[in-house]
Every structure is written in structure tokens, then in C-alpha cells.
């Protein structure tokens, strides 16, 4: 996975809670055997009508948001199915950071494995930014190293992220290679059980 130290980008406000992974990427797109190419199907049933035409009332289709890379969402983002196609679709579309009051556990892990920074933040500031991003084009700067997010008006907040997740994101490390550094312990564990 690609390393990510910081990211500055346009914010897309998705003011909905309990956005499930069926909404992020509907089942008809889970049949592919590759990891790539899911972006065009992101939020498919919200973005497109029954004939496959873009719905203009879904704001992600509007020109102003087409290049957004930071997603702002409501509570419990990514609940439901464990499909990793959800972060694949988000990252393929161009999202690098997701800010929400809370995330579903499996999605949170899946996002991290794909170099997306999922950030839990308190609702008050999030709602303010949600409003700003709804009213006009709005940019945030996310600094993972210093665990800070700043807007262009000079508001700065800090965020928490477990150190081991941060380290992996900053370095773009391959989880399996890291685990295999412990292979002697896996062997010893297996031997102890036989």
C-alpha cells in the first residue's frame, strides 16, 4: 500500500449516519476478481438512477465535488457487510481521508489496510465543517504525522489514532511481511499445540 504522511484536499459532505457498505458499493459490483476499478460504482444507487444516468440531486455528481478527496460522514460509517470492495471503491474514486464521529469495526480496519486514514472526531466540529462544505468549496489539511487537521480559516484540531496504525500508514508497510518477522513465534505456537 502507498505511504501517506499528509493530505490536503476538497471535502465532500455526506450528512448521513449508518452508511452501510451495501450503499458504498452495491452487491452487483462484487463479482470482479480485481482490486481496482470500483470507483465508478461508488455509492452507485445514490449516484445513478435505474437507467444508469447520474442523479443531479446527489451532490457528489456535481462539478464542485467531483475532485473531492476527504469524506465527511455521520456516525457508524461503513456498517454491515465486511466487503473490502467498499474502501477499494472509495480509494479508487479518490478519497484519502474519512472523517466521522464513529466507524464500524470491520470497515475501519479495511480502510487502514488500503491507505485510507479513517479519523474519529467529535460531532460539533464535524457538523461545522459539514455545513461549510455544503455551502461552498471547502478544503482541509490533514497532517497524520502531527495528528492535526486544519481548515483555511486557521481552525486546528488534533485527532487520535493508534500509534501502530499511524506507523503503518506513514510507511505504507505490508502487514504480512511484518507478521512474518514473527514466524519463529508462529512455529513455536504450532509446535506447542501438537
Amino acid at each position, binding site marked *: 500500500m502507498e505511504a501517506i504522511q499528509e493530505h490536503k484536499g476538497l471535502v465532500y459532505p455526506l*450528512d*448521513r*449516519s*449508518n452508511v*452501510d457498505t*451495501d*450503499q458504498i458499493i*452495491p*452487491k*452487483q459490483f*462484487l*463479482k*470482479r*476478481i*480485481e*482490486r481496482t476499478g470500483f470507483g465508478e460504482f461508488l455509492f452507485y*444507487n445514490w449516484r445513478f438512477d*435505474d437507467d444508469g444516468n447520474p442523479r443531479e440531486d446527489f451532490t457528489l455528481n456535481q462539478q464542485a465535488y467531483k475532485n473531492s478527496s476527504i469524506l465527511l460522514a455521520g*456516525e*457508524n460509517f461503513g*456498517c*454491515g*457487510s*465486511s*466487503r*473490502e470492495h467498499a*474502501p477499494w471503491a472509495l480509494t479508487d474514486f479518490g478519497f484519502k481521508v474519512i472523517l466521522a464521529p*464513529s466507524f*464500524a*469495526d*470491520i470497515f475501519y*480496519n*479495511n480502510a487502514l*489496510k*488500503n491507505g485510507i486514514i479513517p479519523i474519529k472526531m467529535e460531532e460539533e466540529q464535524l457538523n461545522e465543517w459539514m455545513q461549510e462544505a455544503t455551502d461552498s468549496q471547502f478544503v482541509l489539511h490533514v497532517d497524520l504525522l502531527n495528528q492535526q487537521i486544519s481548515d483555511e480559516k486557521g481552525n486546528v484540531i488534533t485527532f487520535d489514532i*493508534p*500509534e*501502530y496504525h499511524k506507523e503503518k500508514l506513514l510507511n505504507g508497510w*505490508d*502487514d*504480512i511481511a511484518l*507478521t*512474518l518477522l*514473527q*514466524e519463529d*513465534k*508462529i512455529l513455536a*505456537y*504450532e509446535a506447542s499445540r501438537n
Partner: protein
Amino acid sequence: MGKPETVVDKIWKKHVVHQEEGKPDLLYIDQHLVHEVTSPQAFEGLRLTNRKVRRPDLTFATMDHNVPTKNRHVVKDEISKKQMETLKQNCADFGIKLADMFHPDQGIVHVIGPQLGLTQPGKTIVCGDSHTSTHGAFGALAFGIGTSEVEHVLATQTIWQERPKSLNVKVIGDLGPGVTAKDLILAIIAKFGVRFGTGYVMEYTGDAIRNLSMEGRMTICNMSIEAGARAGLISPDQKTIDYLEGREYVPKGDAFEKAAEEWLALATDEGATYDHTVTIHADEIEPQVTWGTNPGMCVPVGGNTPIVADSDHKEDVKRALEYMGLEENQPITSIEIDHVFIGSCTNSRLGDLEKAAAIVKGRKVKDHIKAIVVPGSFSVKLQAEEAGLDKVFTEAGFEWRESGCSMCLGMNDDIVPAGGRCASTSNRNFEGRQGNGARTHLVSPEMAAAAAIEGRFVDVRNFAGVLS
């Protein structure tokens, strides 16, 4: 005697391979279940890095999500076909046992694990599927993982896990007649919400849980994820042992006796503590029907849809009612349906089918309704046919299908059309889950069967013959 421990404490400490301050634990995985949808990219990853499957003997694969439930040999969708062929090739290349579409062990992955005895108390079990929590019914620590983690487990037989917090869901008293495990878990999610389990492993305790069949316990644990918990489990007891004895992958003879003793010892100790406990009174629970677009949007069948102005989440409620094509404050029993689906990893086992069959026996499905029964596995289908259940269903006007995930998520041809309304025994009523624009109401098998007969939701307890 040491400090009293929960079943999770006991399983956890037996599986720690490596521990380091400030990091998650590296846990050993005893059983990895694999299906066609979430595995192809994982195998591809192994190939790209020239890695092998570390323990093919601890890995078992089946095809369930995409499989046709009628005309089994005709997979019309080329991409589905390719996904299943890919699994077959991957299993052959990496030496993994596969129950393919025509194999007698085929079925929904969470139905066949217990059925084959691959699921056992004390095991750590993972699968690239969120309903892996089902296996917790046996006192196993079982949770869903993403495809990157599938690849990780294939390569290392381990997974990095943060120690979850513990949540005791204590269900006291007993469920009334006509009220099922499905109603209980729906009522729990309705009461506490779809994220109250986030970050926790839920352990279900209390008399009502002890009195459930193993199938009922699977239904409960299955839907733990709908409350936000990755895993839900129940301490093993004699019922667990009796269910497992004689199953294909369970030890035999003296080895079984020894295993059974160890399994019973895994049960949570008297006096063990939890991070959080909630209590539910089983006798207050009524048959449930979801009205909205997540499983927490649920009321008793005698109730009404919510009033937007009275709700804490006005926007969500408004959106959900609109999607579902319902009025606010509408009686649940006034909701007419046009589809009925009895199946899914939540409710497709023999006991589920028997209970639904008892309702439909000698009755007819309302004319306009398309009703299907999809057994959870090939073996469930055979047993049901031996008991004559297929005849009961088909004579009533149901279609009797081959096993698979089917209309729970509509990855095959079993789809509810846009605007269609389905009484479904599955686990998710998300927008578009059963088909783009489809409207799903989650219910028990008994409630789904009664709705098929009446054409609308009815209280199954008032249904002639149910309580006698």
C-alpha cells in the same frame, strides 16, 4: 482458583502467538472459512508475492453467494461464473478443500461450518464475511474480516487483533409461545441500536439463551454484527456437545469425551466481570417486524411505524419511511407484501424450515405473492425433503430451491424488483440489499410464513393452530 474468566478471556489467552506493549495481539486462527466473493483478490495477492497458504488443512472453502438456486448448472452471469471458477482454481492451486456447487457439503458458509463440525467451542474462526459471528453460538470466537485480512490469514494463519471490550447481554425469563430467537435479537437491536456493540464482543447469557436450541443460538449470534459487534458468543453447554457429537470433523470416541470436557470448561466462570452489561426481559418480547432501512428500525407486529416529529433522528426516519414507501404512524399489520424469502445464514436451518412449514401446512400463499424457500445447505435440503417439507411448501405455493445465500443479498438471479416489498427471514434491510429499490422487512420464519398466507403482516400468535 484464579480470577473468574469469561469464555472470551479463556479463548483469547490460548491463542496469543505474540504480544507487545501498545500493539494488538497476534492471534492464531484455528479455522478459516472461504467463499467466492471476498477471496479472489487475496489469492491474487499471494501469487504476486510468491507466498503459500500456510495451513490449507485449517482452511475450508465453499460457494454460496453467487450460486443459482434453480437450474444449478446454468450460471447465466459470466462474471459470477468467472468468480466461482476462480475459487475452484485457487483451491486446486493452493491445496484447499472446496465444497463446490454440486458437492454434498455445499451450503451457506455459516450453515455448513456447524453442520460439518468444523465449528467447535474454543476455536478462533474467521471468514471474509461479517456474519461469521454466527459460529459464536458454539462458544467459538468468530468474526468477519476483509479481503486483506483473508490474505493475511491465508499466508500466516494469524491475525492482529485488539483485545475487544466485553458486553454481557443478559436475557432473563423466557420467550413466549410464537416468539423466536429472531424476534429476540431484533428486539435487542431495536432497543439498543445498530452501534451499541461496536468495539465489543457480545456474550449472550441468561435462561432465555440457555433454553434456545443451537439453531436459535446461531440466529442470535449471527445478527451480533447488526448491533455493531464483530463477534457474539454463548458459553458452551451440554446442548452444544450434543449437537456436535458424531459430526464429520468432530473428534470421535475417547478423543470426543476429552474434547467435550475441555469445551464445557470454557464456559464463563461464576463471578466473571464484563465491561458492560445490559438486561432484557424475554417475556416482554413480541414478534418483531422491521419497518426501515437498518435492523434497528424495528417494532413489535402490533405497533406502528414511527412519527417523524417524535423521533430523535428525524432525517433518518424520514428518509427510511420514504424509501420504504410507508406513512408515519402506519400500523405494521396494514403493510401488504408481494415477496416472501425464507432463507439466509440467519434462518435457513432445518428447525427454521420446520417451523415455517407448520404455519403454511394445508394453507395457500396469497395469489400475487412470489414466495421462495432456500435451504441453507444441500444437507438441510435433503433432510427437509426426507421429512416431506418440500411438499408442504410447494403445495402451499412456495418455490422450493437449491441452497445458497440467494435473495438475502441478490447476487444471483433471486432479486426483489424495484418497489417490491419482501417479508424476509434474512439479516439486513438496507436500501437496495435485496435488489435496487427493493423494500425489505426482517421477520422470523414463522412470521414470514404467516405473511405469505395473509398477504400482509399478522401476529403469528393469533394465527390459527400456532399456540395449540
